[in-house]
């Protein structure tokens, strides 16, 4: 078996070579993952926090339903729902580009998992924190904002790291709805050039490098946000 890395410099029929196509696909992957991450953390933080409220049982049930709904349906099926079913049911969504629908799909799927992590992080704090805040006259919102969430966030950082890496890997399901990202590139380029091994190797290397970069970024954030003397309970990075 011979290697043919020159395949990346071949023209793919539209004036650009495969290397350029792959790099553009990589940008799409990062764009999908980045936008989905923002949605996932924003929604997940809210839902996870709501699940720990002690004086609003209906909201807690609602948040529980949210998490159960998005955790028990496979991501690929959810992407199909967003891409095909939602525009049919809600006509306003027919104008929305596919990219946004995929971001919603991936973002909400991951938000359920991040909500679980936020809930676990908040519940890992001693109950005394909440009661002390109440004793000082903080409202629920204030006690979360100033006392509970800052500490919970630091507890959550390791599982959040591995969840972000998962998000990056999960962005690959966007191939099913023709988002021009890395996996779609890999499948199409492999068909066109029949140099599957080189193509797949390069795409795999890009995914691994991106995941590693995410891991390092979070390690940096963790270092910057570390509070001296606060020993975080080892919540081994679950996935």
């Amino acid at each position, binding site marked *: 078996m011979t290697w043919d890395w020159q395949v990346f410099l071949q023209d793919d029929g539209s004036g650009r070579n495969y290397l350029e196509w792959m790099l553009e696909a990589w940008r799409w992957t990062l764009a999908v993952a980045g936008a989905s991450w923002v949605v996932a953390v924003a929604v997940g933080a809210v839902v996870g926090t709501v699940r720990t409220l002690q004086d609003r049982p209906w909201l807690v049930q609602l948040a529980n339903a949210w998490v159960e709904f998005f955790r028990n349906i496979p991501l690929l099926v959810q992407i199909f729902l967003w891409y095909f079913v939602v525009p049919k*049911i809600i006509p306003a969504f027919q104008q929305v580009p596919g990219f946004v629908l995929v971001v919603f799909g991936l973002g909400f799927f991951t938000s359920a998992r991040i909500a679980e992590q936020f809930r676990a992080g908040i519940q890992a704090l001693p109950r005394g924190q909440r009661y002390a805040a109440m004793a000082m006259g903080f409202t629920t919102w204030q006690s979360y904002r100033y006392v509970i969430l800052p500490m919970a966030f630091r507890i959550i950082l390791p599982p959040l790291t591995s969840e972000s890496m998962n998000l990056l890997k999960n*962005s690959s399901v966007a191939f099913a709805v023709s988002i021009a990202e890395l996996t779609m590139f890999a499948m199409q380029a492999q068909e066109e050039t029949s140099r599957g091994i080189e193509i*797949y190797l390069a795409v795999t290397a890009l995914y691994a490098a991106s995941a590693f970069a995410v891991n390092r970024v979070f390690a940096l954030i963790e270092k910057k946000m570390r509070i001296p003397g606060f020993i975080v309970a080892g919540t081994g990075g679950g996935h």
Partner: protein
Amino acid sequence: MLGLDFSFINLDVLQKFVWGGLAFSVQLTVIATLGGIFFGTLLALMRLSGRSVLMAPATFYVNGMRSIPLVMVILWFYLLIPFVIGKPIGAEVSAIITFIAFEAAYFSEIMRAGIQSIPRGQVFAGQAMGMTYAQNMRLIVLPQAFRNMLPVLLTQTIILFQDTSLVYAIGAYDLLKGFTNAGKIYGRPEEAYLLAAAVYFVICFALSWGVKRLQAKIAIVR
């Protein structure tokens, strides 16, 4: 209602399209779970053996499998297996091999955590009774580790069941494909996707509810 029309679904349709796909998805899940736990335990033992000739390849394999998207792994195996064995291979068989290999990495992490959670005193007691490393593992450590990790293993199995939908990438006929085909033939793709989502939801929700109950039942009071 909402412009959806579910009237095309009846037992006949379900049997023709969906049943075969469901059977394959379940089959794939069970085989991948059993194979994954078996090889995963082997990998975990390799990583915990203390001998770098065993630890290095096992660590490389596990970390490698965990850093690549599952879709890419599926594509890789679909490309490489015919290459290695010299003749073409069906998407279903390729999927089975892929999932065993992929899930072995994830199950190995779970089993490794399980083995490491056993108090060292158990190992020392076994050694004091004259057991070899292998006997120790087989008779004392692994049974306890497996029991401790059973809820986590089952949760991973549920995730595995959901991940089987990704064999869409190589066109294997699983549950999702069954619904997709039914939707295409009857011209009702959106309804088919909704039904697929509902079926997956019911199965996974029931299974995770079962796992929660199991967890409560086998919890050992220490």
